[in-house]
């Protein structure tokens, strides 16, 4: 085991997979970053420090700085994947999927289906998402709900450095397109990571990070830590929470959710995306549909309101889910009568 940051887990996994498989290539805006500057190509190494050193190690044929065009990045990744490479494309901000939506939605997600299963598109599209940095409405969004709704894509939202390692490796080695969502506020968090160069976590297997029999709290990414904090606090009152880290929103580990709800009968879904037609609504619908008879209270969502993300720091923190809001929701389902 090694203790490392979330961002270091991203970088080291890419590094190890590029060493293992010469078909793995990286492309994106400023993944090299210093081209043409006085400091040399590696002067910057990606604004999230998730590609530092790759260019020195693997050179310009495998680490490609692209123009500022998300359509071009994803389009190129699609072409590389169809022709046998394993591209890892990086979108600096998940908010920019709109620019490349045709490439993601109509092309990458559908190649295998449209060609009768005779082709595969093993592309990984990494993107940084999430709010909390006072970065306003166009650079703070959580886009997993849009992408999870697109059949043909696998959507991964790792929470811990170890999960980054295991899930990113699975993503790179997977023969289907994978969206890999990295929360900006998690990049500097640290955790124990297995050293095994073949450590993989299969998709669609949620992680039970806290176990208890009274309430099921479901989340993934940054907010999972808040859910754990609530579970730890309520433990002192004798209230047991199952905290489920989904890890992947597509495929969805329906079994872990239903198994938990069949015991607890109470569900709180915590999500950073707005409430309409989102992950929270989706999971509430799932338990209402398939575990109706077990429910002791209506399933609740804790999400931001249905508005763009505010710029002002105070408004942004009021907008986002918090430990207090999650605790209030848990108490509400417990108090339901």
């Amino acid at each position: 085991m090694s203790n490392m940051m979330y961002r270091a887990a991203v970088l080291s996994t890419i590094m190890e997979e590029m060493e293992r498989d010469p078909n793995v290539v990286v492309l994106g805006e400023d993944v090299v970053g210093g081209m043409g500057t006085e400091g040399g190509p590696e002067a910057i190494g990606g604004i999230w420090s998730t590609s530092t050193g790759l260019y020195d190690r693997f050179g310009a044929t495998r680490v490609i700085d692209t123009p500022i065009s998300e359509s071009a990045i994803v389009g190129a990744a699609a072409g590389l994947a169809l022709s046998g490479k394993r591209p890892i494309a990086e979108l600096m901000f998940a908010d920019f999927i709109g620019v490349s939506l045709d490439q993601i939605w109509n092309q990458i997600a559908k190649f295998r289906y449209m060609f009768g299963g005779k082709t595969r598109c093993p592309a990984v599209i990494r993107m940084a998402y999430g709010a909390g940095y006072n970065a306003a409405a166009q650079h703070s969004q959580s886009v997993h709900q849009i992408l999870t709704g697109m059949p043909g894509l696998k959507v991964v939202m790792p929470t811990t450095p170890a999960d980054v390692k295991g899930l990113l490796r699975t993503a790179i080695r997977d023969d289907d397109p994978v969206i890999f969502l990295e929360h900006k506020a998690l990049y500097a968090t640290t955790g124990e990571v297995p050293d095994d160069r073949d450590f993989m976590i299969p998709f669609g297997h949620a992680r039970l990070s806290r176990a208890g029999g009274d309430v099921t709290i479901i989340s993934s990414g940054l907010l999972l830590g808040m859910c754990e904090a609530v579970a730890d606090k309520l433990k002192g009152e004798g209230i047991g929470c199952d905290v489920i880290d989904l890890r992947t929103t597509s495929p969805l580990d329906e079994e872990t959710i239903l198994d938990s709800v069949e015991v607890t009968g109470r569900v709180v879904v915590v999500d950073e995306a707005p409430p309409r037609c989102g992950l929270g609504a989706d999971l509430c619908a799932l338990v209402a549909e398939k575990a109706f008879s077990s429910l002791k209270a209506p399933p609740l969502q804790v999400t931001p309101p249905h508005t763009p993300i505010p710029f002002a720091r105070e408004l942004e923190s009021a907008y986002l889910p918090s430990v207090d809001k999650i605790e209030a929701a848990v108490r509400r389902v417990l108090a339901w009568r």
Partner: protein
Amino acid sequence: MPDIRPFCMPKWGIEMTEGTLADWKVAEGDTFAKGQLLCLIETSKITNEVEAEYDAVLARVLVPAGAEAQPVGTLLAVTAQAGTSAEEIDAFIAVFRPANAPTNPNAATREEPAPAPAPRPIQTNRAISPEALKLAEASGLDIEPIEGSGRHGRITLQDVQQALNAPARPVLVGTLALAEEGKAFASPLARRIAAQHGIDLSGVKGTGPRGRISKADVLALVATPAPMQGAAFAPVPNPPAIVPFDRVRKVVAQRLTQAKQEIPHFYLRSSARLDELLALRKTANLVLGARASINDYLVRAAALALARHPDVNVQVHGATIHRFAHADVAIAVASPNGLVTPVVRQADRQSVTQIAQATAALIDKAKAGRLSLGDMEGGTFSISNLGMFGVEEFTAIINPPQAAILAVGAAARAVCERPDGSAGFETRLALTLSVDHRAIDGAAAAQFLATLKGLIEAPEALFA
């Protein structure tokens, strides 16, 4: 499907939670006919004979005669048609669940260990959730026919519960003829209500957004209580407005509950002719310039009677009786804060005019909520008068530590027999005396009431 039926512990009456099977009158394996005596069941109250309601064979007895009491709904035996195999009976018992669970929660918990058959392990390749498997094994359900609602046909707990439940017979409302959307710009709910009440929405002016006809617009048209023929009464939500006890009410509640629970009340009813007092009061008020009410005269009369009967003019403190020479008469007053009982001090020593001034001051203070504790403390007797509300007569709760209270009803005209034997009318006042028997005996209270009655009927003595 063989006609296998359960025979359960019956429920005779709301209070019955369990019964004891005293004797079987049909042996296991024997055939019985409708109307035949099946068994005897004892409850805490009676022993009942149970007659068969149909022809069958008593296929299996699960509770033998003389076994300990069983909760209502417990499976006592299984009946079947002749020729039903033991395996079929076993299978029936395994999945049987009482149709009407007992209403007594204690009975429910006691029932748990009784009929639950030992779980039967299920060997299957089907994907199934742990809770679902647990339930299926406990209830002996065959899971193979279940179509799992989970991913890839996985069986959920809900699937197993649905398989165990009897088929639902939903009560359907059916379809309604709605006004076409194009003909009326109205909300779906408004159109539904219009259809239910047979209202034509064309020409109705909507008050909703952009002139849309809303539920309120339609309800305004049906507001007149002319429901459609056969339309069922639809209760509206009727949530209570919850008002916590305030300080005064808490005290009133606590003291009166204590009084009613601890004091052995007895009640003496009488009535007094009021005509003399009414006549005297008119004159006296003119002469004295006083504004004494009938109640003020009653306070004076009661105080004088109490002074003459000191064994009624008492308070009860634990095992002691406090006897007073002078009468402090409390009067019950309805104030904005609730019932208060200010005290007219030594009313036997005050004139009616003085009493009238004292009560007027106390009532003003009570209505303003400014009564002090001193105004209400003590008291050796109480008078509660509801006559002004037209109450004919009532019984009052004693206000401890006092030992008696007089409830005064309305003055009412009544037919009476005159001294010459002819019939006439007089005004009578109903009096009910509530007495604490710990301190006052019936005869003493009766003598007091007789004196009081005499003072009211010959009111000149009130000015003595």
